[in-house]
């Protein structure tokens, strides 16, 4: 199963090639792939090591380390900080992803429905926040939300709100982090869904118009099922990334104030680097990896199903258009 929105691989072509290309030997594809695999798999050794060292008390401070069994794991599961980190991780990912998907879908629909100079320029410039490094984006937002020079403070003053605390307060830090994430990654959702909208076939929409279907009816029964694969891809990418978010939170408050923004990534970093308890930091990140995998599998399953539905409708629509 390929990661391909068309759902159909040019399998025939490849097989054809196998039989007719004289320079093909069985080993060749493996040989061609070897360099890229060697380079990346070399890096992957740590992956296995992570599991092993999560069972030790390895620390950069101790000269030697010893096997401690499941102690790190038990300590973690009985630590309230761990459950807090899971809660922060899930909450951040949920809010960031949902807002990005909804706003992204909305803006993509608006952009896809209108063709004029304004929207043409917008399609290009709206991608800028996505191209700026998330860390740099966070710095920009710190310049915006700063209470002495930030423009947002001056803006809120107009409405009688003074000294809005943004990232500095327990109550608003999560909101601020999600806002920055939304700013950086919403364009990602927009351009993926927009690509889906632009590749829609014209004929079913014309017949829907002739039949007098309402805009909502057309959206629900035609547009949505057909762009669903794109929506799932955007969801997959965003959910996986926001569950693991590190850069924005680290650059914003390093997990603070207090432990407000301590998600699993930041907690693992702090345990491993700041407290130098290397072995103890690994279970956190292994749990995160497990969660990410679980979520990804679910979305990929749905994505594959939606692809079948969409291509089915595509074909039906084309036939309908012809008759």
């Amino acid at each position, binding site marked *: 199963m390929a*990661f391909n*929105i068309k759902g159909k691989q040019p399998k025939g072509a*490849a097989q*054809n*090639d196998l039989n*007719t*290309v004289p*320079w093909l030997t*069985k080993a060749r*594809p*493996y040989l*061609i*792939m070897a360099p*890229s*695999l060697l*380079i*990346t798999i070399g*890096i992957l050794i*740590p992956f296995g*090591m*992570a599991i092993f060292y999560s069972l030790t008390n390895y620390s950069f401070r101790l000269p030697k380390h010893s096997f401690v069994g499941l102690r790190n794991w038990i300590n973690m599961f009985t630590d309230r900080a761990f459950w807090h980190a899971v809660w922060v991780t899930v909450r951040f990912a949920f809010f960031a992803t949902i807002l990005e998907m909804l706003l992204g879908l*909305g*803006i993509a629909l608006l*952009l896809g*429905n209108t063709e004029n100079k304004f929207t043409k320029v*917008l*399609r*290009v*410039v*709206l*991608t*800028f*926040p996505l*191209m700026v*490094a998330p*860390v*740099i984006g966070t*710095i*920009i937002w*710190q310049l*915006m939300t700063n209470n*002495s020079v930030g*423009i947002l403070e001056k803006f809120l003053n107009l409405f009688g709100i003074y000294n809005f605390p943004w990232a500095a307060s327990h109550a608003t830090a999560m909101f601020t982090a999600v806002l920055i994430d939304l*700013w950086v990654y919403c*364009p990602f959702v927009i*351009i*993926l869904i927009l690509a*889906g909208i632009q*590749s829609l076939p014209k004929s079913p929409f014309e017949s829907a118009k002739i039949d007098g279907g309402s805009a909502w009816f057309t959206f629900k029964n035609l547009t949505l099922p057909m762009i669903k694969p794109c929506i799932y*891809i955007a969801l997959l990418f965003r959910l*996986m990334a926001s569950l693991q978010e590190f*850069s924005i939170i680290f*650059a914003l408050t390093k997990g603070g104030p207090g432990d407000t923004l301590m998600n699993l*990534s930041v907690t693992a970093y702090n345990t*491993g680097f700041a407290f130098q308890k290397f072995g103890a930091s*690994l279970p956190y990140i*292994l749990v*995160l*990896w497990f969660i*990410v995998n679980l979520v990804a599998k679910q979305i990929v399953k749905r994505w594959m199903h939606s692809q079948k539905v969409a291509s089915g409708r595509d074909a039906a629509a084309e036939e309908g258009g012809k008759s």
Partner: protein
Amino acid sequence: MKRKRIVGNAVKNGLLALYAIFALFPLFWMVLISFKSDAQMFNTTFIFDPTLENYDAVLLRTDYFKYFLDSIIVSVVAVLISVLAGVPAAYALARYNFKKKESLAFTILSFRFAPEILVVLPLFMIYQKIGLYDTYFGLIWVYQLITMPLLIWVIRGYFEDISVEIEHAAQVDGYSWWQVFLKRLLPLIKPGLVSASLLAFIFAWNNFTFPLMLSGTHVETITVASLKYIASDTVHYGQMAVAATVSALPAVIFALLIQKHLVRGLSFGAVKG
């Protein structure tokens, strides 16, 4: 009816304009502040005497240029290695049928989605031991996890778009496999290859986790170094803005060049824009 449409369009454009302000104003504000002197920072908003003193302070009087150069070295070399090793791999995945093909392809893809910190923590330990910590090579190697999956998956799609007939025809003309690859296929995928490489460069350039944990003071990328300008004891907001503006510049410029291929690159070939 007509009136309704005019109102509808106005609402649409209004909503889009609102989002555009949300998306672009922070960038505008960053550039604006970068030209503002410390003296005017607190008592002016939009109208002030622009000055280059922040640029002078950051670019000429700190190590900013070195960070910038470090970022360029690490990102460019990482992309070059990924292109050299990844393009042939993409070709193999597109054209050949072999055992474990899809699982190999997915393994490569999964590198991109593994939590970066999961890789970094053990790698930190290994790098310390074998002397790769805080070196160009160490960072370039780990950056392969960002650039390689992207290039392989995107370029694979471009190869699949090319009809095998072209290869057969070239073969009839007496070209060897290598010549077909270089003279027929590469020119065809060139636009895609260039944009995928530029996007890979942007990803590498923007990465923060790897250089933060696997590098120290010898090799310091711009993303990590930029945080230094947030030092709270000396609040030079203008200098913060300069550091952010200059480091965002390459990514934004490259993004303008690859608009047509952006969707494909960002979705690793899953969505063909």
